[in-house]
């Protein structure tokens, strides 16, 4: 498989003024995509998978996700909000999902279409594909873009295992636009479909779609910013129209375990937290005899309920999602499947391997560089303190060989060198 290295834009950005150049994000980044240079964090775009761990961990809130402003609604004649089910878990004592959905209409949307509605069609298609038996096992879910990006930079041999099906929000966005065109008679470009997102990775996906030529989503609004608008509006609602038609299963996708609960067959496994996912994927690459049919992997601990753009504590939100989903299940709503064909729900574009690790095009030169890395590394203190601005001593050695850093940047070795100079002078 040939690596594809066209530049990728990312949604995770840095507010330089707020960044103090500490090592919090540096040490936490699962793909070693952060360096501290000139006292500020720097994200290496080629390595970033948009998981949002740095956003969560930054004590100074210097890391943000570049989402779209609410004013973007003005660009379209008709606007539809597509809330991730995680939104329902953000509120204290929420009696019914319909409060939130009516609230979205009150703050300026013309219509709402629940992202949870996209899940049913995806579950049906997944079951069909699993039954056909053509997918490589273990099949890995495609709902979390951070997981797909992780695979595309670190686990090329698992690319063929990814479920080639759109994410629920994409299915919902496609269906929402289709319905709106029929309802309003407007052309598709005049309809704004805005995802209310707990997720930084999903924001990147609108610019750089995964598996699709173009994203069906017009813009991504951060859940935090919508929450701030929604909260005052909820208190002022005069009537609550029944809007929600999503299912218990659909809402449950907001938390880890939701997707495989809906599948309810075969040997399925759920894994959450990006580090847990990395160690599981390492094992899948190595162990031929793991007998697993399907893996639900969500980068955030607990699932999207603890996405980087949420307001509420992820565990609290998870508990509420369980309650809300149950309440929704009790309503016994008729199942109203979305009107999309299997073809529309299936990826048209392959996921490409982005090898950002290789040291040189020329194998012999790459070997030499590898030896240099080992030589430099042996001389470093190997305590991974991070003060040089690279996350580990090994990584500094690599950065030096790649020309991104100087050996001088190790303060421990510098101190040693100064001491020996001093001794010579004495």
């Amino acid at each position, binding site marked *: *498989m040939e690596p594809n290295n066209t530049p990728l834009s990312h949604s995770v950005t840095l507010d330089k003024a707020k960044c103090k150049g500490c090592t919090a994000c540096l040490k936490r980044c699962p793909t070693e995509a952060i360096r501290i240079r000139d006292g500020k964090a720097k994200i290496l775009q080629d390595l970033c998978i948009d998981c949002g761990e740095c956003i969560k961990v930054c004590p100074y809130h210097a890391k943000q996700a570049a989402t779209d402003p609410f004013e973007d609604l003005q660009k379209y004649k008709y606007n539809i909000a597509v809330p991730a089910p995680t939104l329902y878990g953000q509120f204290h004592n929420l009696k019914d999902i319909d409060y939130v959905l009516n609230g979205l209409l009150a703050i300026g949307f013309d219509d709402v279409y629940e992202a949870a509605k996209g899940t049913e069609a995806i579950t049906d298609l997944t079951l069909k594909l699993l039954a056909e038996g053509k997918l490589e096992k273990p099949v890995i879910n495609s709902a979390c873009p951070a997981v797909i990006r992780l695979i595309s930079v670190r686990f*090329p*041999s698992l690319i063929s295992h990814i479920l080639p099906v759109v994410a629920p929000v994409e299915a919902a966005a496609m269906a929402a636009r289709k319905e709106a065109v029929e309802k309003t008679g407007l052309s598709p470009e005049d309809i704004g479909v805005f995802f209310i997102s707990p997720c930084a990775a999903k924001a990147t996906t609108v610019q750089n779609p995964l598996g699709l030529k173009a994203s069906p989503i017009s813009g991504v609004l951060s859940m935090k910013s919508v929450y701030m608008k929604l909260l005052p509006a909820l208190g002022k609602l005069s009537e609550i129209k029944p809007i929600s038609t999503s299912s218990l299963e659909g809402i449950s996708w907001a938390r880890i375990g939701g997707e495989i609960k809906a599948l309810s067959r075969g040997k399925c496994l759920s894994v959450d937290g990006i580090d847990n996912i990395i*160690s599981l994927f*390492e*094992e899948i*690459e*190595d*162990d*031929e*005899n793991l007998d697993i049919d399907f893996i639900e992997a969500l980068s955030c601990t607990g699932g999207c309920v603890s996405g980087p753009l949420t307001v509420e504590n992820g565990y609290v939100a998870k508990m509420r999602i369980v309650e809300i989903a149950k309440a929704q299940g009790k309503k016994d709503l008729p199942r109203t499947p979305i009107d999309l064909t299997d073809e529309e729900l299936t990826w048209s574009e392959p996921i490409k*391997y982005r*090898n950002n*690790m*290789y*040291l*040189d*095009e020329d*194998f*012999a030169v*790459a*070997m*030499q*560089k*590898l*030896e240099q890395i*080992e030589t430099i590394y042996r001389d470093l203190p190997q305590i991974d303190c991070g003060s040089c601005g690279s996350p580990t001593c090994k990584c500094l050695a*690599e950065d030096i060989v790649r020309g991104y850093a100087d050996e001088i940047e190790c303060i421990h070795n510098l101190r040693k060198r100064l001491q020996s100079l001093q001794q010579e002078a004495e």
Partner: protein
Amino acid sequence: MPNVKLHYDIDGNDFTVAGQASSNLKKVLKQLGVSTEVIRKAAISMYEGEINTVIHGKGGAADVEISTDKLIITFTDHGPGIKDISQAMQEGFSTATDEARELGFGAGMGLPNMKKYSDALNISSVLGEGTTVEIIIHLT
């Protein structure tokens, strides 16, 4: 001829660290730009070899030598040795303990998989002294 050597100590008392050498080797091979296919072969052999060295060999070491055309991985231990090598190579043959089986090892598939995914596999073993398993994988 450039050539890279890697050495991994394999702790005989800890199952849970198995996989670390494999993970490190995979990274190195990606840095060298080796094909995904070869990385997968190397990963499987490395992992199975690592585990055998822990659970059967009571610990030892793995040495990797990468040259322009091939990869040689050598596992060495000073464990009990293998009584009958051709029997050990059979699919499904295993002397794994109940403890190891509980952790999912002992299907008797490790050595057969190493053979399947490598271009050459040589075992030398002396009862009571130890075992050396050498694997060769061509890079192109």
